[in-house]
């Protein structure tokens, strides 16, 4: 167990270092900070002086070490487009994206798992067929079209819900939340649904497939033979054993949620990190791109680590097999 955790930590460290290196290479080879800071008319001496001041004349490994040191402290320099500290920009956008992603994940799990169980237990009925067809549509529809269709229906035609921004937010220290006002909740509904559709369909299909698989196994037949009520068989035995893949996918999809949030935030002009990133890509704003990349990679690595550790909590077989076999 300990060896496993240590190995995973080492792996995570290598991935982070790789990502940091990519971000560093972005700074090195994309655009020249000296040229953009001094302008066209600067003399060679001025350039050299600034170069020395910024530490750009130092050997490569030293520069990389400095970059990593700064990155760990959250210092990615100044945004080329907005002229503000990148860390401040990200910090101000982070709450919006996290609230949106978590809301979407909750919707996907709370709706997806029961529907998946339902579609598995009532296999072949009309309603479960309908659920499966809808879920196929959910996987095929691009996120931005779902957002546009929802806006068209609920904002333009019915005029029930707003389609733009976060609405009223309340600030606590550095954290601004839309969850404390009615207006904030109203603004959250459409983006959260849009973002959740793909994950919801994925979780639904996964739960259904796993349930069907598990329901065929001997221990389910045995549990039935022992005279356990259906509810205990389905939820106590079957559902519990489908949860390992569900946790994996949900965990891995949390990263996908953050990536898809870029699209959702663009459609709904939701002031989160995704909108910041897409503007950075449009204007080749390297510091913001690098910072976003590192932050998202960090979230990914942490989530993957947590997912792996959760395996031990959910699947007892992993705990037992370990001492016997090892790796």
């Amino acid at each position, binding site marked *: 167990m300990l060896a496993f955790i240590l190995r995973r930590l080492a792996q995570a460290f290598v991935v982070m270092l790789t990502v940091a290196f990519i971000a560093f290479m972005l700074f090195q080879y994309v655009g020249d900070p000296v040229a953009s800071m001094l302008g066209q008319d600067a003399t060679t001496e001025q350039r050299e002086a600034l170069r020395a001041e910024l530490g750009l004349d130092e050997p490569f490994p030293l520069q990389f070490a400095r970059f990593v040191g700064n990155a760990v402290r959250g210092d990615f320099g100044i945004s080329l487009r907005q002229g503000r500290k990148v860390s401040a920009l990200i910090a101000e956008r982070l709450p919006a994206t996290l609230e949106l992603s978590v809301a979407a994940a909750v919707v996907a799990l709370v709706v997806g798992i029961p529907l998946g169980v339902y579609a598995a237990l009532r296999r072949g009925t009309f309603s479960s067929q309908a659920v499966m067809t809808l879920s196929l549509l959910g996987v095929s529809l*691009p996120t931005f079209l779902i957002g546009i269709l929802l806006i068209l229906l609920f904002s333009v035609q019915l005029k029930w819900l707003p389609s733009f921004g976060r609405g009223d937010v309340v600030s606590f220290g550095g954290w601004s939340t839309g969850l404390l006002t009615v207006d904030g909740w109203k603004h959250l509904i459409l983006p959260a649904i849009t973002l959740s559709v793909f994950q919801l369909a994925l979780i639904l299909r996964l739960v259904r497939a796993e349930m069907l698989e598990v329901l065929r196994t001997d221990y389910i037949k045995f549990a039935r033979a022992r005279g356990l009520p259906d509810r205990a068989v389905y939820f106590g035995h079957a559902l519990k054993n489908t949860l390992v893949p569900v946790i994996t996918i949900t965990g891995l999809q949390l*990263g*996908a949620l953050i990536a898809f949030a870029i699209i959702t935030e663009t459609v709904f002009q939701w002031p989160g990190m995704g909108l910041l990133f897409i503007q950075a890509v449009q204007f080749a704003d390297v510091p913001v791109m690098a910072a976003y990349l590192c932050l998202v*990679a960090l979230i990914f690595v942490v989530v993957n680590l947590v997912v792996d550790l959760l395996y031990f909590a959910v699947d007892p077989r992993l705990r037992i097999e370990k001492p016997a076999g090892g790796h």
Partner: protein
Amino acid sequence: MNTTTAQAAPGALARFLDGDVWHSFKSSPMAIVAALIAALCVFCAVFAPWVAPHNPFDMAAVSLSDARLPPAWIDGGQRSYLLGTDDQGRDILSAIMYGARISLFVGVASVLVSMVVGVGLGLLSGFAGGKVDALIMRVCDVMLSFPPLLVALLIDGVGRAIFPHADETLAFGVLIVAISLTGWVQYARTVRGSTLVERNREYVQAARVIGVKPSRIMFKHVLPNVMGPVLVLATIHVAAAILTEATLSFLGVGVPPTSPSLGTLIRIGNDFLFSGEWWITIFPGAMLILIALSVNLLGDWLRDALNPRLR
């Protein structure tokens, strides 16, 4: 399966018509409908300059007085603009055909590039083994741990930063590279898996014994036998690549604005949603869904048809 699959023997068509795949196709209504829709979309896209009622890029033929006309069956619509016009007076139906052409081109080109890269690296990985294998598979692991869209966006962003004043051809190149670099991993993994199985087969050993060069064994003997799953992957991947392109274009970082794809059309139409001109965005969206759904259904069917275990 034997190595003759790679050679186009004279009776290839006859054998195909008599084969399992064709029979399975004929007995699956879903596959036939999907194939018809996909064929229609591809036809309209490829022959857009000849079948489209208007040329949306011909500035002389477009007039602003025709801007924002609704579809023909709604009051105020004109018969010559079946699906209405956009903000510049361009015919939506023609714009969709031309847009689908660009979307299909980018999608198919990206799939071809990722297929070549992925199959090549997969073959190498499975055939060489050892350190090469370990390195390629580690790269795959890292790639897989990030969502494709994010990787595509990043490569696209880097491309934009390196070539700030790229012309149209270069912009397309960057976009295709960005999309294909996210897709090759699946091919590499699939091909590596099948190669590991194939390389221990008797025909490979026989080839080795008679002294065939490893590179020749790789491409002439092993490759044809690992292509089945690759074709299935490629079909489904075309739909995914088209959607990725549409998403990037919708976000404003895809194809250059001078050659609008379906995603660009949807992006343009999005600005007119609130003034009631829904047709500018909904019709290109519907076309996108039609293409993606029909290609996906075809891919699903092909996967089942080529998988003998499912019969």
